[in-house]
């Protein structure tokens, strides 16, 4: 696709109004038939807004501080989430660890599967055709676009998510944080570091 549109599908106001009307029609009919209620929709949106990378950051900071937790997280991500009171909704969460030898990157080539319960709604770029298409083919080049340079001595592993299996990256613990407690460590864990698009923040680097 040499002329792939740079910004992905654009918003056409007439078409948008048509699909917004379709959404409204479907929603109204479902409410009138007592299949769903508007309160349930509001609650679902509220739940969506409440979940976000802060939950994943709690898991990562715990794993950095507690080797038992880390082991359990790498063997059963869903159980490790639940252990911190984060519900997982029946999808299997697989956590992959970044080390000195391996850097992991997560993608969903077919659609947009993402650990939404842990990280919230995926960023738009995660769902875009260029990311989905290129992440598996040229991950180092993709990572470079995020400002992440992976040395040749480090392998890059790309994980393709499915509807039932969602991946999350356990980023490497930044240097110079030996004395840090969990609460401070959480601040170093970014959303993109848990997708594998970047490293966790190294203290001193961000100023």
């Amino acid at each position: 696709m040499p002329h792939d549109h740079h910004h992905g599908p654009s918003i056409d106001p007439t078409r948008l109004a048509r699909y917004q009307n379709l959404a409204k029609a479907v929603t109204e009919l479902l409410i009138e038939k007592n299949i769903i209620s508007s309160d349930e929709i509001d609650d679902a949106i509220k739940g969506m807004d409440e979940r976000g990378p802060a939950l994943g950051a709690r898991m990562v900071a715990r794993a950095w501080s507690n080797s038992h937790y880390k082991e359990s997280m790498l063997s059963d991500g869903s159980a490790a989430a639940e252990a911190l009171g984060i519900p997982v909704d029946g999808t299997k969460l697989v956590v992959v660890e970044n080390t000195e030898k391996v850097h992991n990157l997560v993608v969903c080539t077919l659609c947009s599967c993402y650990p939404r319960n842990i990280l919230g709604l995926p960023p738009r770029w995660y769902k875009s055709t260029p990311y989905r298409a290129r992440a598996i083919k040229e991950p180092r080049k993709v990572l470079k676009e995020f400002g992440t340079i992976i040395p040749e001595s480090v392998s890059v592993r790309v994980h393709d998510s499915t509807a039932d299996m969602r991946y999350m990256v356990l980023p490497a613990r930044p240097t110079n944080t030996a004395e840090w407690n969990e609460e401070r460590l959480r601040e170093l864990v970014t959303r993109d570091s848990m997708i594998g698009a970047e490293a966790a923040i190294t203290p001193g680097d961000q100023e």
Partner: protein
Amino acid sequence: MVNKPHDVAGISVSEIDLEENQYETWEKQIDALLVLLSGEKKLMRVDELRRGIESLGVNAYNELSYYERWIASISKILVEKNILSQTEIDNRIRKLRADGDLQ
């Protein structure tokens, strides 16, 4: 074999647009519909959403934005399952348009 439109792995050469746009209310409402229908209501599955999206045809798949694809698929699946009828959806859209509710 020609890939179906959703099967994009390895084909695109364009740059990734890293702009961070928040989701709009209409997008979250469509997302919420699926969360409810596939979750506690158990009326459709996420795989069915994907099947619906993948069968939109290459033009619609490439032209529509993410949540436009979702609602197109959700309505299609609900009609397939006789939960809603196409006629009542069409009639309601006509009414909404006549009321000038959204435009």
